[in-house]
């Protein structure tokens, strides 16, 4: 069972307390963007077998959104971080690199 530490209220919450919210850090293309960018934002999603960044909501707890880094192959959680950011904190990237050398996700990855 998945367990995340909610970065807002600090509670260790298990899966039934949380709602999955899909891919994190989407760039929301709007009017004026190209058709390709817009349809990409609407429909294309990262679907990696490995490191993934997601949004979750502590639905049956504090009710707040947060971000999580997780492995879809093993369900290992690398860490959670606040929703108010456009990219994962360096500390989490370092944790992932230590555990999964050579990982990539969109333009991110082990340096």
């Amino acid at each position, binding site marked *: 069972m*998945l367990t995340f530490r909610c970065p807002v209220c600090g509670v260790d919450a298990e899966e039934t307390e949380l709602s999955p919210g899909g891919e994190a850090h989407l760039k929301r293309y709007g009017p004026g963007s190209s*058709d390709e960018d817009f349809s990409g934002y609407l429909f294309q*999603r990262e679907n*990696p077998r490995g490191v*993934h960044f997601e949004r979750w909501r502590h639905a049956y707890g504090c009710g707040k959104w947060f971000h999580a880094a997780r492995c*879809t192959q093993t369900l290992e959680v690398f860490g959670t971080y606040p929703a108010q950011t456009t990219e994962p904190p360096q500390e989490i990237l370092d944790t992932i690199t230590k555990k999964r050398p050579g990982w990539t996700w969109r333009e991110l990855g082990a340096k």
Partner: protein
Amino acid sequence: MKRYSAFALVREALNDHKGWTRAWKDAQPKDRYDVIIVGAGGHGLATAYYLGKRFGITNVAVLDKGWLGGGNTGRNTTIIRSNYLQDPSAAIYEKSRALYEGLSQDLNYNLMFSPRGVLMLAQTQHEVRGYQRTAHANRLQGVETEFVGPEKVKQLVPIIELNGPRYPVLGGLWQARGGTARHDAVAWGYARACSDMGMDIIQNCEVTAVRSDGGQVTGVETTRGAISCEKLGIVVAGHSGVLAEKAGFRLPVESVALQALVSEPIKPCMDIVVMANTVHGYMSQSDKGEMVIGGGADGFNNYTQRGSFQHIEETVRALIETFPMISRLKMLRQWGGIVDMTGDRSPILSKTPLGNCFINCGWGTGGFKAIPGSGWGFAELMAKGLAPLCEAFSLDRFPEGRFIDESVAAGVAH
């Protein structure tokens, strides 16, 4: 290939069963094929079979990273139905159901197809109206279904509790020609027929890269060496996103875990398939007597082939309300499969941005029933570049907004 028949059975019985041959050859990869299909599950093998049978293309290899039929083909709940709302879905699923009727004879392999009937329970007023609408749509599409009242439901399923605590049964959508089939046998039957046509089924052969030249596919690199091809078909269900990335394009697909479970075997008590979509569970009884149970999928990306325990709890809780007599049953085993979900819950059978590379994916939680129809249509698409059955299911439908919205139409379970 030796034909299977009652006569062959008698002959082999008298011969100590020494004359049986392998159902399919253990093939070694050649350097080049006209067509390579990645994924030796039901859909991939059916595609290869109809490529040979309908279009005479037999220089075909079907590659699988594991063993034949070891993915979702062996992990589903074997339900076959075609009571969909939208025309393109009804066309391909009904083609599929119709093909299942004669498939055992066609393949000379007993698929144990059992057209026992599928009943989808209506447990809210909303569902009653929804299923009445589907029944009307099906009548126009030439799919035989009817909306039945609670009395008929009780007659079809004597073990059902019509006046459950949360959701009374108000009726149901009944498709008498739906049913079940032996899932492994579908893969094995197609594999045997493909091998007999001279196709190579190569197991334990993972595709590690897709080769292309000037926007056209030229072959694949595998754990058993490079193989070149003229056309490539990607039919890998849950791992479609991974393969598409190797081929250099993205898909509107996310992979999640869907679970099923079976109980200990009991005496025959239910001779149809019952789906209860409001409370989230469906059940049928296998020929061995086990109650085969399926429920909801997880909401997050997952490749682990095991799902979350609360979904089993939710499904079993719902089914105990609907069928109180199963409350003391012990569950025998539980498993999960990785299903590829699209935004409109309809499949993708399409050309791709890479020339001569085709993709068949996105069957989500309802792929087994579609195996023959999907193979029929996808083979035509690969052979001719155009197939009426597949036209509406192209990748273009997402940017162009031509969704085939079965996600709302079908409630939850597919």
